[in-house]
């Protein structure tokens, strides 16, 4: 079923290319909707069968290059399942949002790459083999590059190139770190005399075979790749540019899913592979995250471009996500995983709203436009709703995740003893109250800039750019849009809104309950392994022993050849 979810979008992508341009969007809508239906079944089946003993379901493996240990293997745990669900949900929404924005003669290029992108994203979350993961991780760059470069606004070439080069450079260094781990596990632990690419095996052995120094270096290499993707301060400079220039659907996918590839990779690889180094360096990463939260928040405050504002708010929000992850306790990591989903929903929706507005007025400058509450009541209602969700209003989805991340950082302290320790390592961790406090100020900043934005955009007297209709319409080439949102546009926002309310009111019954056991197992695993790292001597001994066995084998072979 997982493989189907990767192959179907590709097939539909080919169909889009072969059919006439007028049909492209219908094929894309059909493809993404079909995938969403299958995905819903997958999620349903996963949680119907979920049990703590079998963390991974829907496993499948196809030996591609068996002699080299390269398998196309997939499988999902609860975190991956939910993120796949998010990806598939955003699929039809993106198609719907692009319905009139993409000129018909270029529709095949756009929708074809959109479907390819969806396949790659599902592949990242589903991968259980290192090279499959890396292939999909890297392959998300290309469709996004095409989308920004071709369908973006004025500065799109620069934005696309910067996006590609920045993330490509980071990922190659991350690949070196991952491959080094694969080599260390292969030569010191599993005895395959080479590289272990299976993620489960890697997770099991990596922390036993990498010395403290190696773990630190591997951590650094992996962060090079994943921190750029998240993006963590100071690697965030590509993001506002890419977001501002990308078409609406591109922004939604970028904010909704692509950024989560970074945090997901941290959850899946960084934490379990090098726990010793993570524990040691978590404060440093957390400080970067907090700087990002506050710094990006302050930038948002002075933005006049509303899309750039939402983009910087992503940098700020993702800081919470990383902070929670590196708090290394149940609360923090749970909050972080929640954040991956909730940020995808609310920021995705904000980008949709900004996109709908831009399609009508062709400006995003808050000095030229504002007070739209009078003219676009439906749009304004959604805007206020999703801003509230993004700010973290209790009762909506942003709140539990932000609260858990901050609390996780706050109670994440080696000496902290109070509180109900429900699970192993529920509170213990490398950060402390000051980290929580500093991040908390970020919540206030977020409230300031988001509410200021709503105040300018929705309330107040109506301001419109001098020329908005007429002159620019030849550019869009689509049908004339009504003043307020159309039924199609409302349909793209409604499902997100419903989920925001459900996840906000019942976080424990829905999300937290779903991921609880996996996250706790992960946290317990990291805690168990973080204390110990083999000394250089032990690692070398393991390798030498292995090498001796190998050389003995070779001597026998040579002896056999010689008469």
């Amino acid at each position, binding site marked *: 079923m997982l493989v189907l979810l990767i192959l179907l979008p590709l097939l539909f992508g080919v169909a889009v290319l072969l059919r006439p341009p007028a049909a492209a969007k219908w094929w894309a809508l059909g493809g993404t909707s079909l995938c969403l239906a299958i995905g819903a079944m997958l999620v349903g089946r996963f949680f119907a069968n979920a049990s703590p003993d079998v963390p991974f379901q829907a496993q499948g493996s196809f030996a*591609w*290059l*068996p*002699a*080299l*240990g390269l398998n196309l293997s997939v499988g999902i745990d609860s975190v991956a399942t939910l993120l796949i669900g998010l990806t598939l949900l955003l699929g039809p929404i993106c198609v719907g949002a692009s319905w009139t924005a993409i000129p018909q003669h270029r529709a095949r290029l756009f929708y074809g790459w959109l479907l390819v992108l969806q396949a790659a994203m599902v592949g990242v979350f589903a991968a259980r083999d290192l*090279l499959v993961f*890396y*292939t999909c991780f*890297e*392959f998300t760059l*290309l469709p996004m*590059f*095409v989308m920004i*470069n*071709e369908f973006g606004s004025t500065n799109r*070439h620069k934005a696309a*190139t910067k996006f*590609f*080069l920045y993330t*490509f*450079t980071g990922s*190659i*260094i991350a*690949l*070196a770190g991952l*491959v*080094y781990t*694969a*080599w260390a596990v*292969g*030569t010191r632990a599993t005895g395959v*005399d*080479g*590289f272990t690419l299976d993620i489960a095996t890697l997770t099991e052995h990596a922390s036993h075979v990498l010395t403290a120094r190696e773990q630190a270096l591997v951590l650094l290499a992996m962060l090079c790749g994943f921190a750029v993707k998240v993006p963590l301060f100071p690697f965030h400079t590509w993001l506002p540019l890419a977001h501002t220039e990308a078409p609406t659907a591109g922004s939604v996918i970028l904010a909704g899913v692509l950024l989560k590839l970074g945090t997901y990779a941290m959850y899946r690889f960084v934490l379990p592979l090098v726990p010793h180094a993570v524990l040691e360096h978590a404060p440093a990463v957390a400080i970067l995250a907090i700087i990002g939260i506050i710094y990006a928040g302050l930038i948002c405050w002075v933005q006049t471009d509303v899309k750039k504002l939402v983009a910087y708010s992503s940098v700020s929000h993702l800081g919470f996500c990383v902070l929670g992850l590196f708090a290394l306790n149940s609360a923090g990591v749970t909050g972080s995983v929640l954040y991956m989903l909730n940020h995808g929903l609310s920021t995705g929706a904000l980008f949709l709203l900004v996109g709908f507005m831009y399609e009508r007025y062709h400006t995003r400058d808050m000095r030229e436009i504002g007070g739209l509450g009078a003219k676009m009541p439906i749009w304004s209602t959604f805007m206020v709703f999703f801003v509230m969700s993004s700010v973290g209003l209790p009762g909506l989805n942003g709140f539990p995740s932000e609260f858990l991340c901050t609390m996780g950082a706050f109670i994440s302290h080696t000496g902290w003893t109070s509180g109900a320790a429900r699970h192993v390592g529920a509170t213990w961790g490398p950060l402390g109250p000051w980290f929580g406090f500093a991040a908390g100020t970020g919540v206030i900043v977020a409230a300031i800039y988001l509410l200021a934005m709503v105040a300018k955009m929705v309330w107040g007297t109506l301001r419109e750019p001098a020329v908005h209709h007429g002159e620019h319409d030849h550019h869009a080439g689509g049908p004339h849009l009504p003043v307020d949102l159309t039924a199609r546009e409302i349909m793209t926002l409604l499902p997100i809104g419903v989920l925001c309310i459900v996840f906000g009111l019942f976080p424990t019954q829905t999300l937290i309950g779903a991921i609880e056991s996996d996250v706790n197992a992960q946290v317990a695993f990291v805690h168990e392994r973080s204390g110990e790292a083999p000394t250089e001597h032990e690692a070398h001994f393991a390798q030498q022993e292995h090498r001796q066995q*190998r*050389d003995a*084998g*070779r001597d026998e*072979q040579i002896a056999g050849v010689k008469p």
Partner: protein
Amino acid sequence: MTDKLALVWPEIWLFVTTCVVMVVGLSPDLRVRKLCGWISALGLVVAIGAAVPVAHAGGLFPSITPYAKGMIGVVGLMLLPLLAGTVDRDLDAAIESGKATFSALRSNRAEFYAFFLFSLTGLMLTASADDLIWLFLALELTSLPTYIMVTISTRGTRSQEAGVKYFFLGALGAAIFLYGFALIYGATGTTDLAEIAAAFRAQSEAGGLNTIGVAGLAVALIGLCFKIAAVPMHMYAADVYQGAASGVSAMLAFVPKTAGFLAIIMLCGAVGWTHGATHDSLPAPIYILLWVIAAATMFTGNLLAIRQSSVKRILAYSSVAHSGYMLVGVIAGPGSGHGTFWDNGIAAVLFYLLTYGVTNVGTFAVLASIQKPNGEEADDIADIRGLHGTRPHLAGAMLLCVLSLLGMPPLLGFFGKVGLFTSAISAGEIPLVIVLGLNSAIAAFYYLRIARAAYLEPADEHVETRAGPIPQRVFAAVLSASAVVLLLTVAQMLMERSVTASGYHAPHAGMADTPHEALDLTRADD
């Protein structure tokens, strides 16, 4: 003697084909003359057939020949349609329209195909070499025809300039590595590679390598840098690639490079990856030399490529950079010798050569398939802008090939690069891996520029291009692009073959066939 003869059957077949082509190409009948390409293809197919079953010739890399010759044959076959119509096009047109009559003196077709086959024969002989003299002659047989092919490939003066530059620098390179060979002979008293290996082994066990031998190796490697277009002998690449017709440039990017790498692998094999503190690397002077060359080559190639506006020059400098990547595999060495593809640097190099050769044909074929109004082939990046609108299949081919060269997963080039990565990590060359990674990222910059120009950007209004007159070249482009994807289905087999091919018989001082006088000579030297 007979076993050596059995080994060179593919070369003999190619030589026979060469003779036939030389005669056929002089026929007054155009239809007969046009058979040259087909006969060459037939000869290559037979040569591949003859090469693949032959193995175990002795020497340091006993099973390298089937893989190397198979690869040479396959890439040669892909180059053929790309080379079609490079020479004699104007002449044929003039004859057909009655403006001229056929004159064997003015026709270049016979020589052109014959030189192509000669060069491939030399390349195959390089793969079979087990002796320094043989190696030198084979290397020269590979290169000499290419000097002429560059010169006659277009009617412009640029080709002549390129040919002259290429020839003089090539002669310099040959003189340098021949000097190195002479020093190696002086240090070991033999020209047989296996015996040299045994002599080196004996020396290192007796307390250190002979200085003259190491100096000879170093000089020879620097000379061979010309063949692979590596720093410090890379200067010619951009001018020559740009001056020659695209088909010939594609050939230059594969044929001499492969010859150079085969020779480097053999020389490094002769001294062995058994030195250093842990007995698993090259001797320190050679190791440092190759390390510096590799790093300098990668950075020089990539940084210079960024600044070019001519696609051919970009590809030329990127070809320099690719040589740097492959040197990483040479430094890493064959690993445990019977490991997997992942920890075997030599297998990685051999596999990379194949992926590079196959992919590179496509990029140059796209250029060769587009013609400017003055009849020249496309060269500037403006010439390929907007290609997706007019010729989508060429734009698609360019995109696939460039992404594969960049090492984008899951295309063929990615697996080539991963092999280099993993083998270097196994050998503990972490700094080199970082350099390799950084350079792959720099390369993204200019490869992306090409991809974007061909696949996404609209055509420049003042730049006029039209489809080239030779459909075979389009075929070569599409063939190469499909190979980038389709070869993935047999990647397993190719990787296994490259591992087999890299099977390295580590020299033993006490090898049964070590001549004692060689050892005595060595001692006399000390």
